[in-house]
């Protein structure tokens, strides 16, 4: 007997698409509609693959051996309590409820606490702290944006439904979809390629296929047309660039220069150079014109900015460009957050400690210092002497030069499947897939909280992240009590029933009743 569940939220990327239609049969997802290729890979095949971990494991004599949950929890708590300065890293692919327990655990241990954003959009968070950010929700952009700039990102591969659901190819209330014009462009391009190949065959020359969007050619006339326009700026041509009205190819590590040049043009200043970052100034002038003439523009930026030279300064100057453009028109800027709840990790950490990532509890209170307390820097300096990794894979996504330092000390991993870091762990915990096997809250890339759904039952004996972390925390407190060490004041019993919904509406201000004024009547002069 199969049943169809509607409006399931996809727990993969920052888009958190909430329109999936999932067919479940015998407690297994058998079919999925509306999702992208990556979503189908996880929701239909990946979550139940052979890589799934079903029992906790401890490394004995170099080999991972299955053990009971109690034994694994005791071992993990022992490792964390024995360590002088453990690092708790990950948190981006789990729900807010688990992240909250994570902060409590970090405080109890006096450890470092960092999330994946330190190797993706950490610089964006830093830049936002410096200069603020003009932002809007994805719904606003869907209905109103008429100029979409993707800077140093490739949404077609990293956020496959972003263009289709929120920007150029979606039918908004005030702006239409550009899908038809894109299809016409593709058809024209395909017939042009065929003609080219045929004519070259007649001339017996090697066929030279003209690229559809000329690399670093002048911006087309269509950039000034009414309706939605899409510009892609990147160091290499991508599938997203193919779909764009204009693709501007810049030299690697020159984002700062190009944005600063655009700012100069927007501010009516003269540029006495011919090219900036490999792009002629006259082309930049036309792009800046399109930016100033639009009614509602948006810049989406990706890891090409945060991981290139300049890091957070690139983002700072991009936000400054959006600020300058706001003097002429309406413009917003937003990062393309990767993991589905990396924004949530920043939100929860900031709500609990005051800081979004790179937090250090070694002094007993939270301190924030990116570059010192960030995971890669800690590992590089060999500061930490134990690591707990939850819902992340630094085994595949950290440079191996720093991973070698992580391997010198005990490693605890909490992941639903056998990813690279779980393959390296000393204590390996299984966990449920959030958004598939249990409910929870996650923040979309525009900081809108969305409740993830439960679709199938989890395998027996496998706990949620929140339950598992609560067990480890309780065990850590038990060990500390035995050793006569002070433990945290708040001992909460977590009963997982409903996800915690953050308040959507600000509470009404409390107004005190005003004291009644006693009005003395003046005696009228007789």
């Amino acid at each position: 007997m199969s049943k169809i569940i509607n409006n399931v939220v996809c727990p993969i990327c920052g888009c958190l698409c909430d329109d999936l239609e999932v067919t479940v049969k015998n407690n297994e997802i058998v079919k999925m509609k509306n999702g992208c290729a990556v979503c189908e890979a996880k929701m239909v095949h990946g979550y139940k693959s052979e890589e799934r971990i079903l029992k906790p494991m401890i490394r004995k004599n170099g080999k991972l051996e299955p053990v009971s949950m109690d034994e694994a929890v005791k071992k993990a708590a022992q490792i964390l309590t024995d360590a002088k300065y453990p690092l708790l890293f990950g948190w981006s692919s789990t729900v807010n409820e688990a992240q909250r327990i994570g902060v409590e655990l970090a405080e109890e241990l006096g450890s470092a606490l960092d999330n994946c954003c330190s190797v993706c959009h950490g610089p964006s968070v830093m830049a936002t702290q410096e200069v603020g950010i003009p932002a809007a929700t994805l719904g606003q952009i869907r209905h109103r944006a008429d100029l979409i700039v993707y800077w140093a990102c490739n949404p077609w591969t990293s956020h496959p439904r972003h263009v289709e659901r929120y920007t150029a190819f979606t039918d908004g209330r005030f702006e239409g979809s550009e899908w038809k014009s894109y299809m016409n462009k593709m058809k024209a391009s395909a017939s042009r390629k065929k003609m080219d190949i045929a004519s070259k065959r007649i001339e017996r020359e090697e066929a030279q296929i003209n690229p559809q969007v000329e690399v670093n050619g002048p911006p087309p006339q269509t950039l000034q047309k009414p309706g939605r326009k899409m510009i892609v700026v990147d160091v290499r041509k991508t599938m997203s660039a193919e779909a764009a009205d204009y693709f501007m190819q810049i030299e690697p590590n020159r984002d700062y220069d190009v944005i600063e040049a655009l700012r100069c043009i927007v501010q009516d200043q003269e540029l006495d150079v011919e090219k900036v970052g490999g792009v002629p100034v006259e082309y930049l002038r036309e792009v800046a014109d399109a930016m100033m003439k639009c009614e509602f523009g948006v810049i989406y930026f990706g890891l090409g900015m945060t991981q290139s030279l300049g890091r957070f300064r690139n983002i700072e100057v991009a936000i400054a460009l959006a600020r300058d453009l706001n003097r002429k028109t309406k413009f917003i800027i937003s990062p393309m957050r990767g993991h589905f709840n990396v924004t949530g990790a920043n939100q929860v950490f900031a709500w609990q400690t005051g800081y979004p990532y790179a937090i250090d509890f070694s002094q007993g209170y939270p301190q924030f210092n990116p570059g010192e307390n960030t995971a890669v820097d800690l590992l590089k300096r060999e500061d930490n002497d134990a690591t707990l990794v939850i819902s992340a894979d630094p085994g595949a996504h950290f440079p191996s030069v720093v991973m070698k330092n992580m391997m010198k000390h005990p490693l605890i991993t909490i992941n639903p499947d056998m990813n690279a870091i779980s393959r390296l762990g000393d204590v390996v915990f299984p966990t449920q897939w959030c958004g598939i096997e249990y409910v929870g809250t996650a923040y979309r890339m525009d900081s809108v909280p969305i409740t993830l759904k439960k679709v199938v039952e989890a395998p027996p004996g496998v706990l949620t992240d929140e339950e598992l972390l609560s067990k480890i925390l309780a065990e850590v407190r038990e060990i500390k009590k035995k050793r006569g060490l002070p433990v945290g004041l708040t001992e909460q019993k977590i009963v997982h029933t409903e996800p915690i919904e953050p308040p959507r509406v600000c509470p009404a201000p409390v107004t005190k009743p005003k004291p009644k004024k006693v009005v003395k009547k003046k005696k009228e002069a007789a």
Partner: protein
Amino acid sequence: MVEQKLRATLITGRTIEQGVGKELGKGSVEYYDSCAVCFFDKSDMQKIGIKNGSTVKVTSKYGSVIVKAQRYPWGTNPGMVFIPCGSWANCITGDETFSMGMPLFKGFPVEVESAPNQPVLTLDELLLKQFGRNSL
């Protein structure tokens, strides 16, 4: 004339195949096929005499890795090589963070040379070689 080594700028990043592969499982064939590759411009491939599917050795200041060569399907990017992010790319990425926590993932120099008959390691083999342990 075929040159011995190609000096290029390395970019690591996402591809849709890598996304699908990682969700199917890090030990899956799809993940291996999509991540243990290096994309080249056509002219660069001719320079060092390699074809689609040849094995190449990519070396940076921080290490080296053997991957398969593939022609970059979109546009021309001479002097730039692209490896999808994953365990293979991170054998050669750097630990320099410029005091910001972000290591070197994009836009740093590498050298590429043809490495015929050298095996492209699987994830478990790669982890064993680098860290002396895996799940087996």
